[in-house]
C-alpha cells in the first residue's frame, strides 16, 4: 500500500507538459550530437547552415530570445518546446486550421509553417502579450462574454486573428468578418459566438479609443 501511494504522488508531481518536455529534450539532445559535425562542414559553403543546430535570435512580445535550433524547427515548435511559450496551439500542423496563429510584423501567420530561422529579424506577437496585469484584451473579453469558445483549442489562434483583423477593419461588416477570419477553423462550431464577439470587441475598442 505504502509503495503504491508513493508512486501515485510522484506521478502527480509530474505534469503532462513536464513529461512531454523531458521526452523532447532527450530526442533533441541526440540530434544535437550528430548535427554538430555537419554544421562545421557546411560552414565552409557560402551561407549554408545546418542541418545541425544554429544560433537563432527571435524577438517575441518585445523580448529577445537567443536559441540554438536546427533549421527544420518551426516557429511554433521553437516557442512551445524550447521557450515554454505555449499559448499558441499545435493542432493540424499543416497551415490549415489556424490554432497556431501568431502575428509576424503585425500580420497573422501560421506559425506551424514558418521556420524559426525565417522568423529572425521579425517582430513576433503571441496571445501571451494581450493580457496586461491579468486584464483581458477587448477581444478576449468579448470572446468570454459571447461564449465564443467551447473546447478552447482554436481560441488563442482565433483571438490573434481577430485582433489583427480589427486593427485593419475597425468597423467590420458580418461579411468582412467571415472573409477575414476564413483562415481559422473551430471544430466545435462556435462561429456564431465568434462573430458576435468580433462585433462587440470592435465597439469596445472604439469606445476605448474615444475615452482614451
Amino acid at each position, binding site marked *: 500500500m505504502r509503495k503504491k501511494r508513493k508512486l501515485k504522488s510522484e506521478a502527480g508531481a509530474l505534469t503532462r507538459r513536464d513529461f512531454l518536455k523531458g521526452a523532447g529534450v532527450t530526442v533533441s539532445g541526440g540530434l544535437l550530437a550528430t548535427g554538430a559535425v555537419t554544421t562545421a562542414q557546411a560552414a565552409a559553403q557560402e*551561407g*549554408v547552415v545546418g542541418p545541425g543546430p544554429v544560433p537563432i535570435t527571435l524577438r517575441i512580445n518585445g523580448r529577445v530570445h537567443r536559441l540554438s535550433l536546427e533549421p527544420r524547427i518551426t516557429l511554433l515548435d521553437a516557442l512551445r518546446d524550447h521557450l515554454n511559450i505555449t499559448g499558441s496551439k499545435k493542432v493540424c500542423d499543416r497551415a490549415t486550421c489556424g490554432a497556431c496563429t501568431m502575428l509576424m510584423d503585425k500580420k497573422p501567420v501560421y506559425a506551424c*509553417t514558418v*521556420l524559426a530561422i525565417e522568423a529572425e529579424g521579425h517582430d513576433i506577437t503571441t496571445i501571451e502579450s494581450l493580457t496586461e496585469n491579468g486584464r483581458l484584451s477587448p477581444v478576449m473579453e468579448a470572446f468570454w462574454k459571447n461564449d465564443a469558445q467551447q473546447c478552447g483549442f482554436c481560441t488563442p489562434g482565433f483571438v490573434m486573428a481577430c485582433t489583427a483583423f480589427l486593427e485593419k477593419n475597425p468597423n467590420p461588416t458580418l461579411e468582412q468578418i467571415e472573409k*477575414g477570419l476564413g*483562415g481559422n477553423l473551430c471544430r466545435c462550431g462556435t462561429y456564431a459566438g465568434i462573430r458576435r464577439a468580433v462585433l462587440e470587441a470592435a465597439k469596445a475598442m472604439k469606445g476605448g479609443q474615444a475615452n482614451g
Partner: protein
Amino acid sequence: MQAFEYASPRSLQEAIRLLPAQWGPTDVLAGGTDLVSAMKDGISTPQRLVNIKQIAELHRMTFSPRAGLHIGATVTLRELLDDGAVQQHYPGLIQAAEAARSEQLLNMGTVGGELLQRPRCWYYRNGYGLLALRDGKSLVPEGENQYHAILGNAGPAYFVSPSFLAPILIALGATVQLHGPRGARSLPVQKLFVTPTRVGQREHDLAPNEILTEIRVPYRPGVRTAVYEIREKEALDWPLAMAAVALRQEGGVLRDPRVVLGQVAPVPWPSPEAERTLTGKKPSEDLADAAGRAAVAQATPLSKNGYKVQLARIAVKRAILSAVQQGG
C-alpha cells in the same frame, strides 16, 4: 520532418548556384505554405532549402501603362491585393487572389509559389506520386476521383492544376520570367504548365536549378475581366471548378474573348470552343450559356466526378456574364 541545410542568399545568382541540376536534394522556399507541409508529410525530402525571400529584386512590384504589371515572385498575395495599381487596373487578379480565403495564407503565400504549388491530388499527397501509380497502374480511374480532372484526362495524369491565379493570368496574356545558370527565359503562363506523361516528370516547365523570378501582366485598357469559382465550403479550400474570362466589347459585340478554366484538368484549361462561341456576338445570357456548354463539350468525366462538368459549365457562364457587366 527530415533535417536539412538552409541558406538564405541575398542575390539571385547566389541562389541559383545553390541549386543542383536534378530534382530532389534541394527545394526553393518562398512562402512555404505548401512546401513545409509536404516536407512534414515526406512528400518532399530536400537535404537543402534555399530561402529566396531575402532577395530584394524578387520582392518588387511595378506598374506602368507601357510595361504593364511586373510582380516579383515573392510578392505576397496580400501585397498583391493591397496594391493600388492592381486594384485599379486588374480587378480579375484581385478576384482570383481572394480565393485563398485565409488571411494567414495571403500574408505568407507568394505569387510565384501560388503558380508553382503542387497538386492537391490525395494520391500524390499520400506518396503515390503525381501519376498515382500502384504496380504501374493509376489508382485514379477506378478510385476516389471525385476531385480529379474532367478534361485533358486521357491519362496517365488525372490530377487537377491547383493554381487559382493561373487561369486569369493566362486570360490576360501574362508571362513568367525564369532564371537559371545559363541566364533568363520567358514563357507564356500557359507554357509553364505541362501534363506529365512519365514518372519523374513535373507538372511545370521549370528546371531544378531555375527560379521563377517575375510575372508580367500586360496592360490592356478596355478589357473586362471576371473570375467565377465554385467551392464546397466558404473557408480555406481549393475550388471545385473555376473560370477566368477576359474580353472587350466593341460596337455592342464581344471581341478577343479569352476563357480559361481552372481545377478541371492537369493544366489550366483554355477553351477555344467557348471563345469561338463568343467572338463577334452580342452578349446575352443565352450566349454565355452556350459558351459554357461549348467549354465542357469535350469533357470526359471519371467514375465519380460527373458533377464537375456541370460546375465548370456554370462557372464559365457566370464568369462571362460578370465580365460583361463589370465594365472597363
